[in-house]
């Protein structure tokens, strides 16, 4: 009898424990505790508040993306509409459901050559979403040991070195990439990543006209609007995002998903 009760108790705890764990932390996601930071755009130095959110530990890999296009034929190479992904979409894949001759090397590496639309669809199909620029930049402030390493010169220097390295022939597996304070891998040093509102950075020379943004954005006085020019890596990310269009696919641009709590 005692034993039965004990068993029941263990079972109940076991079941509830599982439910609890699932509820608080989906597989391969971590909690990024909210806070404030001063983002690098606009002329205002108003700190932005980021609410606590969940973020994928790794960027989405080729294998994961393959499962997605398998399930959602609309996003296969041969089916995708040009307005949602340009002609270099999944460039290195040899067929709709084939990662290509180097599959063994890159199956667990980040998927690249994906558009904003396709990345967004992927996340939505997992019940997630892309991170906002603010969330992404906030999470990227972290070094291995500190949530905010913005004033850590050594970390900053290392980040610059990462960015100045040319792309390797084969991107490394996501698990091998740098792991930061939150447990996020590859926020720096692996690939650039799509964000939900990549088109929201209003870093413009003359905000009233806001004309021909493509050309004026980072020429001449474009960078005057930037907040912390010392953080050159963040500046590069903002510049890069501003140069994107939603159907562009780029060789070192991948994504990961996030989720509100």
């Amino acid at each position, binding site marked *: 009898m005692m034993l039965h009760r004990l068993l029941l108790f263990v079972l109940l705890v076991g079941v509830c424990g599982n439910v609890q764990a699932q509820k608080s932390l989906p597989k391969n996601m971590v909690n990024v505790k909210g806070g404030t930071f001063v983002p690098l755009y606009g002329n205002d130095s108003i700190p932005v508040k980021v609410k606590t959110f969940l973020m994928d530990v790794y960027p989405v890999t080729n294998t994961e993306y393959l499962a997605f296009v398998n399930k*959602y034929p*609309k996003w296969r190479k041969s089916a995708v509409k040009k307005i949602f992904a340009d002609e270099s979409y999944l460039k290195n894949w040899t067929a709709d459901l084939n990662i290509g001759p180097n599959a063994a090397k890159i199956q667990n590496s980040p998927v690249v050559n994906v558009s904003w*639309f396709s990345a967004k669809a992927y996340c939505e199909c997992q019940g997630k979403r892309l991170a906002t620029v603010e969330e992404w930049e906030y999470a990227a402030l972290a070094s291995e040991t500190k949530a905010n390493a913005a004033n850590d010169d050594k970390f900053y220097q290392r980040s610059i070195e990462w960015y100045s390295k040319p792309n390797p022939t084969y991107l490394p597996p996501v698990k091998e990439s740098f792991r930061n304070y939150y447990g996020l891998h590859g926020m720096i040093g692996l690939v650039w990543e799509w964000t939900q509102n990549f*088109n929201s*950075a209003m870093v413009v020379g003359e905000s009233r*006209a806001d004309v021909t943004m493509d050309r004026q954005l980072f020429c001449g006085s474009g960078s005057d609007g930037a907040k912390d020019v010392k953080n050159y890596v963040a500046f590069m990310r903002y510049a890069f995002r501003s140069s994107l269009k939603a159907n562009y696919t780029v060789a070192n641009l991948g994504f990961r998903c996030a989720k509100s709590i």
Partner: protein
Amino acid sequence: MKYLLPLSILLGLTLSSCSETNTTDALAAHQSAQATIAGNTELSEMSLYNLESEWQNEDDETVKLVQLNGKVQLVAMMYTNCTYACPRIVADLKRIEAKLDNYKKEDVGIVLVTMDPENDTPEKLQQFATDNNLDPDRWTLLTSDEMNIQELAVLLNMKYKNGGKGEIAHSNIITVLNAGGEIIHQQEGLGKDPDETVKTIDGLLRSI
């Protein structure tokens, strides 16, 4: 109402882009019906009408963008609380409209899309149309959930940022769509000479 919004966004998301079943079939049927009107057979891959999102117009009817098919459309984004740029972009659109007198209203439409869905309900849009004397046969005002608006905005090359407190920083672009929903021309900035835009529209209408 505020609490309902995230829910509706969530529902909107699941409905719009992540259905395994082929919603494109229903849409395709709809499109071909529309295309018959337009005289084309199929939407091109670069047509904005490939967006499958649902919108509300100023009459609170649910519409899809593909229903704009068959006309040359001028599209701009604004929000009704906007005090500086938006009245001017509406004025710019009216300047273009005034030069289109030769054309029937069935040939050219003008679409205003809000960037502030939280505030701009269909009623607000209706009020805005009335206040600005926008001819309902010519003008359509649209709202949807934030994500759908963002999708359209990126396709229109619009950059905007909701700074809260009712202020939105945004670019000012008037886009000309051909009858099939492809971007043919964009006029950027405020108070621009509308000649080039008008010429583009003239050209499109002659070829219809």
